């Protein structure tokens, strides 16, 4: 299925509601917290003179839309695709909803704009690789690591991150990927321990932090505080499982090297 494809082209309620559900599912899939999804979609519906009520779950969302003029209504149950987190889609689609609300776009224009925004290129993998390696290395510095541990963490993150990208693009299960990549990164970083350098424990600890699922963690908290407790819990549990996988990978390395880690 092509992203953002809308097959029905006429301007009736059903196709508008289908577009809205597609829009909402796209936002949910790219890691937007639920109150923003609901606000954006309602605003979008408002622009198309519809009243919209949404109920989100972790894997699907339900959308009720009723036309203001005719009073017709329609229910749609939509599956949420599991997309990579994208703040750019978050920003652009939020902006699109305001543009629709401020009355500048017709329905066809809106669909066209949406399709273009969704198809925008993602950040190049090599850029992500380099930037996240620098990030992890400076993270190491923040914890008090020396220059040498920073270098080790840099290289460990590069190896771990590139294997993460490769494995995820191959469609391997995300939990397995996280456990494996945390194991790879920490075992590469463990070479600092082998050479008995100072701050080698910091190098080990920071080498896996590029995997921390920050977006679901904070989104989960925000959802819970805004009253979407169940969805918030689901997101937190999801994030927690990923953290657990990181811990499993890290402890795998520690088991191998346990003798040198004795304090």
């Amino acid at each position, binding site marked *: 299925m092509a992203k953002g494809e809308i097959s029905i082209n006429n301007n009736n309620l059903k196709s508008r509601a289908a577009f809205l559900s597609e829009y909402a599912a796209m936002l949910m899939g790219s890691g937007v917290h639920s109150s923003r999804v609901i606000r954006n979609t309602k605003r979008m519906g408002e622009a198309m003179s519809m009243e919209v009520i949404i109920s989100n779950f972790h894997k699907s969302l339900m959308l009720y839309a009723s036309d203001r003029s005719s009073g017709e209504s329609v229910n749609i149950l939509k599956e949420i695709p599991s997309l990579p987190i994208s703040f750019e889609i978050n920003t652009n689609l939020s902006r699109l909803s305001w543009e629709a609300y401020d009355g500048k776009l017709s329905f066809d224009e809106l669909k066209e704009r949406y399709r273009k925004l969704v198809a925008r290129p993602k950040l190049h993998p090599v850029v992500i690789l380099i930037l996240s390696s*620098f990030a992890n290395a400076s993270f190491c510095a923040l914890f008090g690591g020396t220059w040498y541990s920073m*270098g080790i963490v840099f*290289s460990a993150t590069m190896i771990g991150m590139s294997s993460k990208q490769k494995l995820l693009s191959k469609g391997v299960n995300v939990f397995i990927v996280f456990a494996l990549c945390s194991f790879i990164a920490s075992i590469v970083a463990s070479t600092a321990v082998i050479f008995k350098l100072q701050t080698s424990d910091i190098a080990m600890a920071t080498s896996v932090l590029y995997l921390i699922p920050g977006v679901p963690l904070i989104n989960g908290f925000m959802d819970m505080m805004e009253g979407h407790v169940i969805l918030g819990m689901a997101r937190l549990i999801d994030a927690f499982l990923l953290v657990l996988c990181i811990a499993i990978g890290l402890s795998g390395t520690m088991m191998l090297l346990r003798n040198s880690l004795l304090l």
Partner: protein
Amino acid sequence: MEIFWKTISNYNVSTWKIQVLIVLIAAVLTFRLYRRPSPFIKKAMMFFMVLLNLWVAVVYYFVYCSERPYYYIFAAFWIVMALIWCYELIRGRYKFERSYKYDKISYLLYAVPFIYPLVSLGRGMHFPMMTSPVMPCTVVVFSLGVLMSFSKKINLFLVLLLFHWALLGISKIYLYRISEDILLTICTVPAIFLYIREYIDSGVVVDSKPGVKAINLLLLGTCGIIGVVFTYIILKSFNIF
């Protein structure tokens, strides 16, 4: 430190004949790859790389370096490299396609394994207790050379592992004052730059988010920083600062 050189001398004394053989095979295969490449030679070269990595893992680390602490992690590292080569051999995507752009650098890299023992001799060491052309660091440089000349569709993971080995080489300079490894680190920085650039160029990404120019600039900056840090550490380890 003492264990380090003792294991090396043991390794050299018992395997120097096989080392000569390996060097000869490598020379013949590399020469053929340049002059008259054929599918058979390419397969043979790939197979040779698998064996070479396994040689380092099993013979060098498991058999001769088992006195060193944590030798098994290094052995695992080399087994992983061998597995990646094996994967490429089976998958058949990497075909030793020559890219012609960086030939001169790779000729230079081929020379490095033979410079290693010369440096050792220059430092006043004698035969068994010195570096030889078939050791982990020289194998890394040789692999870099091969990948440099035939850089189409290379495996990024392999390159990054080689880079990490260079980083470990730095720690050896730092701890054991093994100045031979400076060669390795000097070779790695431009190599990693060229590889990743090749990797970006080879990608099917038509319009990437920051333009290609921005990515290349970022890459250049990164390699610059790595280079500066490497030089700093090397200079510092010889107490020049």
